[in-house]
């Protein structure tokens, strides 16, 4: 458990050292980036394997007076996503970012440090601080190309993200004012004798703040704009990790601090499920109209995160398992799709759906990977997306949300239409001679790795489910979590 803190320190230290290396030791810069990423992968695997039963790491040995870190199965799931995505992301970006790359990797390491901090901490204010670190560096990455559209989209992202942070900070302040502590377990105990109205108001602030970062319906408009002209490998990490880390913070906060009984009693479960249904129907309809591949995938991300929210908020054990599984699967599937689009963009500067016409014959393996990724995200049987979507439908039916289950099936057909549109374009014969800049192995390898994971997790879902089935133990009944955290 001593290793848990290194998960945060290592990327931070790497980012700072990269800053010095950029100025004076340019030769070792890329060796440092790759070496640190490999070391980080090894570290993450060590931490994930020792994640059960959870243990507490007290920073500065202050116990309840200071800040504690804790790795429980839900955190371990996010560390697993970092482990799966980060090294492919680094390898892909090495080749993809053609011009100045130094700052790019500094920001990536800062972003990962922020996300791992969010995932490990048990302190409410520390969560906020690391969230700011990750969203600020995420903004920096999304404007990395410095084009007009990129800057406009990032400006929207920055404003909305700050707005969300404002509400989260407000809720944090109110919580501290009310309970006199920032430790989540102690807050949970102190909340037991708090009046209903005040508790639900604080909860509303939390939900509203995080809903902006997650991109639920009226607050989703920043996401496609931010993705439109950003470096495409960044989109992989953003849709796989940055958005999910907000989901993590919301789930952790609500289930631990407020408890499932209060969520049920205040009607939040019903509200969020309804909200999710509206969000994904709208996002699917909007995605159908897009001609830009990045925007299409961005709307698809909004829809998939709405599925995740439905899974996580039906309030049963099956729902939590299904939602968490979909978090992992969506990170892999969307990563595959964005990587393929990134290669098309690298080789032919393709951004519109029209531009990729006929590429199915020029890039047979990559196009096949794209087809695998898109069929997985639609939810067709042999792939991983089917598994988690099926589990979500089952959990929704079991918890009595029949309309949600029905609309998920409707949404599946909607998503099939627009992904089919892309696939058909991909395999339409095109006579135009194409200008092809060969994509190297370092671009193809991460893509094919993630694409094959889509199939592996579809055929052997017990592999990740081994970890995921332990998640509800510490969320549905927050007593265990509190006991471990307070007991030291």
């Amino acid at each position: 458990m001593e290793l848990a803190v290194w998960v945060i320190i290592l990327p931070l230290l790497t980012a700072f050292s990269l800053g010095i290396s950029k100025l004076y030791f340019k030769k070792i810069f890329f060796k440092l980036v790759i070496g640190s990423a490999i070391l980080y992968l090894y570290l993450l695997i060590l931490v994930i394997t020792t994640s059960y039963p959870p243990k507490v790491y007290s920073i500065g040995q202050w116990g309840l007076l200071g800040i504690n870190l804790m790795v429980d199965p839900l955190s371990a799931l996010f560390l697993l996503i970092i482990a799966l995505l980060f090294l492919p992301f680094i390898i892909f970006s090495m080749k993809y970012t053609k011009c100045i790359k130094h700052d790019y990797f500094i920001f990536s390491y800062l972003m990962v440090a922020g996300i791992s901090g969010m995932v490990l901490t048990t302190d409410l204010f520390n969560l906020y601080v690391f969230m700011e670190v990750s969203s600020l560096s995420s903004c920096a990455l999304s404007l990395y190309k410095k084009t007009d559209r990129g800057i406009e989209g990032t400006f929207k992202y920055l404003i909305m993200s700050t707005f969300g942070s404002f509400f989260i900070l407000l809720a944090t302040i109110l919580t501290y004012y009310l309970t006199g502590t920032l430790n989540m377990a102690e807050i949970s105990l102190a909340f037991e004798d708090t009046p209903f109205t005040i508790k639900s108001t604080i909860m509303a602030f939390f939900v509203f703040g995080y809903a902006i970062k997650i991109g639920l319906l009226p607050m989703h408009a920043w996401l496609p704009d931010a993705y439109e002209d950003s470096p495409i490998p960044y989109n992989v990490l953003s849709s796989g990790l940055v958005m999910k880390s907000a989901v993590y913070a919301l789930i952790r906060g609500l289930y631990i601090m407020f408890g499932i009984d209060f969520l049920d009693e205040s009607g939040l479960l019903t509200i969020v499920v309804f909200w999710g249904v509206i969000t994904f129907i709208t996002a699917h309809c909007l995605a159908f109209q897009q001609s830009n591949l990045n925007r299409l995938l961005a709307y698809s991300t909004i829809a998939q995160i709405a599925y995740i929210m439905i899974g996580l908020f039906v309030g049963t054990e099956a729902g939590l398992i299904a939602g968490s599984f979909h978090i992992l699967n969506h990170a892999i599937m969307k990563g595959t799709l964005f990587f393929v689009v990134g290669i098309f963009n690298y080789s032919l500067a393709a951004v519109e759906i029209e531009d990729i016409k006929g590429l199915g014959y020029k890039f047979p393996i990559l196009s096949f990977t794209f087809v695998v990724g898109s069929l997985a995200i639609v939810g067709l049987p042999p792939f991983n997306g089917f598994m988690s979507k099926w589990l979500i439908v089952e959990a929704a039916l079991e918890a009595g949300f029949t309309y949600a289950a029905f609309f998920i099936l409707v949404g599946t057909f909607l998503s099939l239409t627009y992904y089919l549109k892309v696939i058909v374009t991909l395999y339409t014969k095109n006579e135009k001679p194409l200008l092809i800049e060969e994509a190297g192995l370092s671009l193809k390898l991460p893509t094919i790795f993630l694409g094959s994971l889509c199939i592996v997790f579809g055929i052997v879902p017990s592999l990740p489910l081994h970890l995921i089935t332990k998640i509800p133990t510490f969320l549905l009944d927050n007593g265990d979590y509190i006991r471990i955290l307070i007991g030291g």
Partner: protein
Amino acid sequence: MSRLNERFTKLYKIGLVITFAYFLLVLFYDIHNLGTDRKRYLSEHYISQGVQETGATNLVASVLYDYRAFDTLGEATMILTAATVLAFLVPITKATMFGTPFKSIVNQTVKLIIPYIAVLGAYLILFGHISPGGGFVGGVVLSIIAILLTLTYSVEFSEYIFKPDQKKFIEDIGAIGFVLLGLLGIFTGSNFLSNGQANFGTGNAGEVFSAGLMPFINLMIGLKVSAGLAIIFNSLIKEK
């Protein structure tokens, strides 16, 4: 019609703000009146035991650099990120600046003031744990030197005295130093960022070399904040 519409939007916005403010007022009022026996053991512990446990007579410093030093690490990282973003956004090529020529009175006065500012900043940083001040405040004061040079002379002159690369280097050294000081705790067999627990000697409260690692952490934060703010200011003023 459009004028009426404009006025209506303005009223609508003002109404929204007032409603939100009123709502918050009611909420704070409610929370405040909840009861007198609310648990305040955390802040009480900091106040009553803070000096003995950390060896720092400045309670703010003891919370910032000892009890919750991990938050400070995150905040310092945020300043570094902001400085890096701004330095990255503003192109290296020269942009036009406002070159208001000042009379020699201003220039001479600034020259005269700068040593005093440097002393004040160094004092605030080094005595941060025993008197009001600390790394953040002292860093801001130190960065004023670069800002004054930029404002009275020019960006070129300011960057001739303090090269951008050097500032970036100092900032990174500060950040790395903070993390390494935290790692000292792990290497001595305790936890990350531990101070008194790892027997770094909290010393006699009130002396300069007391409170274990706190003066050194203050120094690192001071270096980092001063360089970071100087970078941020120069980048912002270079903007066209």
